[in-house]
């Protein structure tokens, strides 16, 4: 029974991890760069929601909505103003720039909110649950999992079945050709950085509802997102879902067997995957 319980809570947590990975994977896929500030987007989004709730006194749903809109604006603005201008064949300038931005955001958060633990209070929803055959399942983790799956499905539908999604895939495959066809790829990139920031913020908000965060929580979220997409394999967003679920189960399992290990076994899993299957669990062979 315990194994099934571990498996279920691992999968539910994995949904949240997958959501962290999804935003990063989009940026990787569309722009071929790594957004080191992804973790700070997540934590920053959660702090916006907390600030809107405490200082403006608005209800939770409105605070979350405001945080998501602000996150989109920040992601979009950063891409238009800064990152677009250092994009090129070499992904390193963008990497360094997002690294710089992540440190700026992180320390801004410290200055604004202090370094204490914060969380988003969701009232009784945090504790209610039900039992199936003696296995306890929390309503909120299940809800988070549902949100994650729904977002994956929405993105899949958008990329595969809409005209705008086709443009995005074309930009990812051959940016020069897309320019010839008259598409403005800088705007597509900015749109996706905005969407990626919203996905990150949503994951960060759910993290703050589930537990607590500090301004320094971003780095660990970035590493989780990175592990999710490498373990799952690049090439499809569904790889990220698989990677998230696997990582979630490994983390929960490690927590039961070796409580002081933290994210150690997730990190080791990444190295093991790189040795045994560098293209990831669901990925195609690709040059990295």
């Amino acid at each position, binding site marked *: 029974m315990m194994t099934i319980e571990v498996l279920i809570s691992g999968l539910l947590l994995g949904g949240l991890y997958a959501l962290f990975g999804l935003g990063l994977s989009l940026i990787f896929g569309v722009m071929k760069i790594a957004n080191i500030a992804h973790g700070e987007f997540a934590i920053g989004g959660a702090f916006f929601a907390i600030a809107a709730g405490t200082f403006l006194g608005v209800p939770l749903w409105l605070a979350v909505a405001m945080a998501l809109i602000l996150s989109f604006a920040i992601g979009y603005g950063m891409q238009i103003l800064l990152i677009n201008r250092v994009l090129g064949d070499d992904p*390193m300038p963008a*990497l360094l720039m997002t690294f710089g*931005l992540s440190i*700026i955001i992180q320390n801004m958060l*410290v200055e604004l909110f202090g370094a204490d633990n914060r969380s988003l209070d969701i009232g009784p929803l945090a504790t209610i649950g039900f039992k199936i055959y003696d296995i306890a399942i929390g309503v909120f983790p299940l809800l988070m999992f549902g949100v994650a799956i729904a977002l994956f499905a929405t993105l899949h539908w958008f990329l595969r079945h809409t005209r705008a999604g086709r443009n995005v895939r074309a930009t990812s495959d051959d940016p020069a050709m897309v320019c010839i066809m008259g598409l403005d790829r800088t705007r597509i990139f900015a749109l996706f950085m905005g969407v990626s920031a919203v996905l990150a913020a949503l994951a960060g908000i759910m993290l703050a509802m589930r537990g607590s965060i500090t301004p320094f929580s971003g780095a660990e979220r970035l590493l989780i997102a*990175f592990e999710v997409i490498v373990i799952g394999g690049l090439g499809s967003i569904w790889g990220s879902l698989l990677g998230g679920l696997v990582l979630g189960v490994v983390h929960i399992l490690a927590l039961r067997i070796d409580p002081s290990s933290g994210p150690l076994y997730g990190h080791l899993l990444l*190295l093991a995957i790189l040795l045994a299957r560098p293209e990831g669990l669901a990925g195609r062979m690709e040059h*990295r």
Partner: protein
Amino acid sequence: MMRVLLLAVVVLLAALPFIADRGTMFLAMEILVIVALSQAWNLPAGYGGLLSLGHHGFVGLGGYALYAISRDLGMHVLAAIPLSGVVTGLLALAITPVLFRLRAVYFAVGMWVVAEIIRILVMRSDWLGGASGMPLSGARDIPRAWMLPCAYWLALANAVGITVLVWGLIGSTFGLRLKALRDNEVAARSIGVTPHKVRLIVFVVSAVFTGIAGAVTYFSALFITPLGAFDIGWVVTIVFVTVIGGMGRLSGPFLGAAFYFLLREGLADYGNWYLIALGSAAVGVMFFLPGGVASLLDHISFSKNQKKEQL
């Protein structure tokens, strides 16, 4: 002429412990450590395109290696410092089979993950004092008054050593191979450059000097904790210093370190604001001056020598 001048500067710096007070000397040592770290990071990153965000792992490793060697092997603490660099280099060598499967951004973040693994393993190890850290048992090898001067001289030797080494490497055919790999791997391979070997050498050299810099820092601190030794702040400083100073340029780490310490000391009363200012400066440099402050000097004077250095 230039070389004589530089030699004179080094001799002058070596004489600092006889004239400066403790505070100045401590700051000078810190500057030299940051210069050495940035120079060591710049070798694979700036010249070779092998950018790591996990060098804090090597800083911590070097520090812990010193503490373990001086306690368990009974070796004199001054002899243990270079050896700590060797230990760090060997560990770097050991992780290359996995890490070198990664390229570009994947390598950068992969290194970060490796540093995290090392940090967690050290925190869980009772042998290394666990999460609360441990004192330097080799401290009794040296009279107290000589601790700081010794740390300073070691930091100076390390900074000069890596600078001379990078200068020598970059001027040699090896340096040409390294830069060829950074600029176009396929073309470099086609003329007989072996990517794996070249990258392995610069990566391990970088780890050795980073490890020594870590050992020197924690030699002067007399106490080491995993939280401080494996702090991502090390990488933040290294990256900002090198980017602002100029990646792939010998003078970059010096100019960047000067900028860093001026900013940090100037904003000392304003908490974390110096990091925000530093990050903004780095982003601004990438934007307006991709070659860093060092390239600004090239703009001012177009002597033949500097054009050569630019290559």
